[in-house]
């Protein structure tokens, strides 16, 4: 569906994107994930045509659109700020693109009302100014405006970042639902790992203008290809030398000189160790209560590790309490030193 072939983008002397290669499948929800300034929005803007690459090509449905003007690409965009025209009503905002296509009034009206219904906007809301709508409703207008012209692809640039936490979760689910209903290929930009993991079919993790890894949420989270991805996605413990040595002594196939990481939920407190697992004892120094789970900071002598335990309401450990921590070497993700990732 969309192919980015060896895309290079430069801003003066600074290279913002280095040989980006991505292949997005038809109907896929594909996410560009990464920290600020990593090149994810630049890649999106290259696809939409706001930025022309120095080299490489953008191919959509086997058509090279690298040098096609923005308005002729048939790609819808939902902007971070929604970019709704403040001097127009909701109706006029949605109809804007159709009017430019010089469609007839009845046809415009039909299409606007149809899409409004699909994104759950009432007739009354259509006649309102965008400033009279809530954040969530504004987002729906932005989606409707992007979809009404029936684009082949829809691109979303951090569309949930302006909303409060609760609404973000709610709209995240609606967004996924809508994407499924419309079946439209979606490219989504975010720096929020949770958003990326919950929404995406596949994720491309960006770092300093390079793609570190492309994979499903499970691949990216549990089988992080590079140390950067492993560190960027979710919270993680880097195991110190003495712990790794203890695990090697117990038969684990780890290298002490490598950087060894383990996710918080893969370690367990006060459980019986299985063969091959390593047990270290420590003291709870801090406890963070999240409701669904509890995060413990446990001093194991050579370092403090963070462990997440499901909150069952029974096994809750107090600060200062002596506990044992069980680590399974198969859960350790190891990376050779000096190879931080694609960007290094």
């Amino acid at each position, binding site marked *: 569906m969309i192919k980015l072939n060896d895309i290079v983008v430069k801003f003066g002397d600074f290279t913002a994107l280095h040989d980006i290669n991505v292949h997005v499948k038809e109907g896929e929800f594909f996410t560009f994930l990464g920290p600020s300034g990593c090149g994810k929005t630049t890649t999106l803007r290259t696809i939409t045509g706001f930025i022309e690459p120095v080299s490489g090509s953008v191919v959509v449905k086997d058509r090279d659109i690298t040098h096609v003007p923005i308005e002729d690409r048939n790609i819808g965009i939902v902007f971070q700020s929604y970019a709704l025209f403040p001097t127009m009503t909701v109706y006029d905002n949605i109809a804007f693109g159709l009017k430019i296509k010089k469609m007839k009034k009845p046809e415009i009206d039909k299409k606007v009302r149809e899409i409004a219904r699909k994104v759950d906007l009432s007739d009354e809301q259509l006649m309102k100014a965008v400033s009279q709508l809530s954040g969530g409703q504004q987002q729906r207008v932005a989606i409707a405006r992007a979809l009404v*012209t029936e684009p082949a692809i829809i691109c979303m640039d951090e569309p949930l970042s302006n909303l409060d936490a609760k609404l973000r979760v709610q709209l995240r689910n609606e967004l996924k639902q809508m994407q499924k209903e419309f079946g439209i290929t979606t490219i989504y930009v975010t720096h929020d790992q949770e958003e990326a993991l919950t929404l995406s079919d596949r994720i491309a993790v960006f770092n300093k203008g390079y793609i570190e890894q492309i994979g499903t949420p499970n691949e990216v989270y549990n089988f992080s290809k590079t140390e950067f991805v492993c560190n960027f996605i979710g919270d993680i413990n880097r195991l110190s030398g003495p712990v790794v040595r203890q695990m090697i002594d117990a038969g684990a196939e780890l290298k002490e000189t490598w950087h060894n990481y383990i996710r918080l939920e893969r370690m367990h407190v006060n459980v019986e160790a299985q063969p091959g697992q390593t047990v270290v004892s420590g003291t709870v120094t801090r406890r963070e209560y999240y409701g669904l789970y509890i995060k413990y900071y446990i001093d194991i002598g050579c370092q403090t590790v963070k462990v997440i335990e499901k909150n069952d309401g029974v096994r809750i450990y107090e600060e200062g309490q002596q506990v044992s921590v069980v680590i399974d070497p198969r859960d350790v993700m190891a990376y050779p030193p000096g190879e931080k990732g694609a960007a290094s």
Partner: protein
Amino acid sequence: MTRIEDRKLQPETLLRIVGVAFFAYLFFGFMLLPCLNTLTSIFNTKNAAGERDPLAVIRFFLAGNMSKYVWNSLKLAILLVITVNVVGVSIVLLTEYFDIKGARILRMGYMTTMIYSGVALVTGYMFLYASDGILTTAFKNAFPNMNPTWFSGFNAVLFTMTFACTSNHMLFLRNAIRGIDYNTVEAARNMGARPFKVLWKVVFPTLIPTMFSLTVMTFITGLCAMSAPTLLGYDSINPEIVRLAGSSSADEAFPQARAALLSIILAMFTIILLTVLSAYERKGHYLSVSKTKARLQKQKIDNPVWNVLAHIYAYVLFIIYMTPVVMIIIFSFQTYSAIRMKKLDLQHWTTINYYGQEDYEYLTNRGKYKTRVGSISGVFSNEATLGGIKLSFILSALAAALACVIVVVACNYIFKKRNKKSGVVLEYALLFPWLLPTILICYSYRTYFNSDSVWYVGNHNLYYAQNVRLLIIMAYTVTKLPFSLRMIKASFYSIDEELEDAAKNLGAGGLRTFLKVKLPIILPSVLAVFALNFNALFTEYDMSATFASSYGTSYAMVIQAMCADEGLYGYNVNASGRRCASTVFIMIVSGIILYLVYGVGARDLGERLEARDRRRKRREKIAAMFRKEAV
């Protein structure tokens, strides 16, 4: 990075070429060349022997009394900075910071200078305070030993301009004080600071950048003062320039070169001050770092003595601001005899100063009665007054609109080419007139275009006959460009860049994006700038005086003429009354424009739709009531 652009020669590209040509024409033709001509004319003087003597006028300046005008202007500017800041800061604090009873009414009084300014204000003050003025006459009757000429020369100019020049304080300092995060005040109080300590140590420092800008602008206003010194009789630079510009070398030594030299001196002062201002602005401002800014709450003055004194001070200022306005409104309905006697005649009220004509019978020095037909006439019946108002209205509206259009188009280009040299060059070109005093530009126009050899205006003499109106429009427009640019550029910053991208993505071209998306967003600001420009130009005096001619008699000049020959030989009998009426008319026009722009125009689409809804509901309610009654 390269942006994808259509490389074909489209209408937009053609428009861009036309635009560049227009701006080049405007800058070189109406800013640079006339002013350069003035500059060079200083060095084109000839001595008594008819030989070219480039330094003659400078020697004349150093030897003669020309420097007196410079010192007088400087004296006025320096003292004005002190008095305007004292009054300006006082009125803002009294209405916005301290809890003073009746602050709303006080604010309205202090803001009257926004609709009542320029020559109308000066003549209004003269009407009250001149030696034969209403209030001076009343005071003289009460205190016979009082000096009746107290309101003349420097004192009168300083007094009038002090109260006339506080509009900027009410606009900008008020906004600055409203922008203060109240949490900072509370924090200071919490740490034990007393109210005046908070004012001095927390509030004032945040106002310093605005105060500095206002101080510089006030200094320049004082330096370039024109209507007050001319009408109240004070020898400062600008009136002297106008006098010299109209003089001939048969009467005095190289008047034009002297006028040019004085203009250049003014320009030098202006350039220095604006350089200082921009250097200061570059240092940065005190910005509130608060993400949850609390709205400023008015501070109670706990000490009862200070509280009473503050209230007295506030209301004394209010009286000073309001008296001319109220008196002018009242006397606009008084008969010419009441005005001439400087006494309020509660028995006889009239609308003749507004509308209608009456004959005037007077006794000649030969002991005969004579009748002047239609010698008493209202604003809307007096051809000269109405003509002045009409001319000023048309010229001001055209120039204000032209300045806005030019600046809007320019700003669109500047923002597109923000990081390119062409954008910066255009911006500086439009700010160029700010470096020059208005009088220099007008004087330059008057001398440069008073010839039929300027090829780029079709070899027409623009100072001749009706052409002078075109010259006035150009001068009005050019002088309003820098202000318009600063204000409208600020509104362009409020346009979310993603809006342009969104429109482009939906298929809109540059022109359509500008007309349908960007322009509606900035329109309230553009209209506000138009209104402010219009109001300032409508009663403007400096340029009118420079271009004064039978075809360029604007409202300000009509008012000045009315002051001069009231009742002479039975003519213009009710000139003062008509002047009051015309001032009232202008206050109403200015007030309506400001209300439409700030009150109605500033509402966003949501507020307008809500208001429409409210109106519809009200109509339905009334209709329902009628239906009920009918049943």
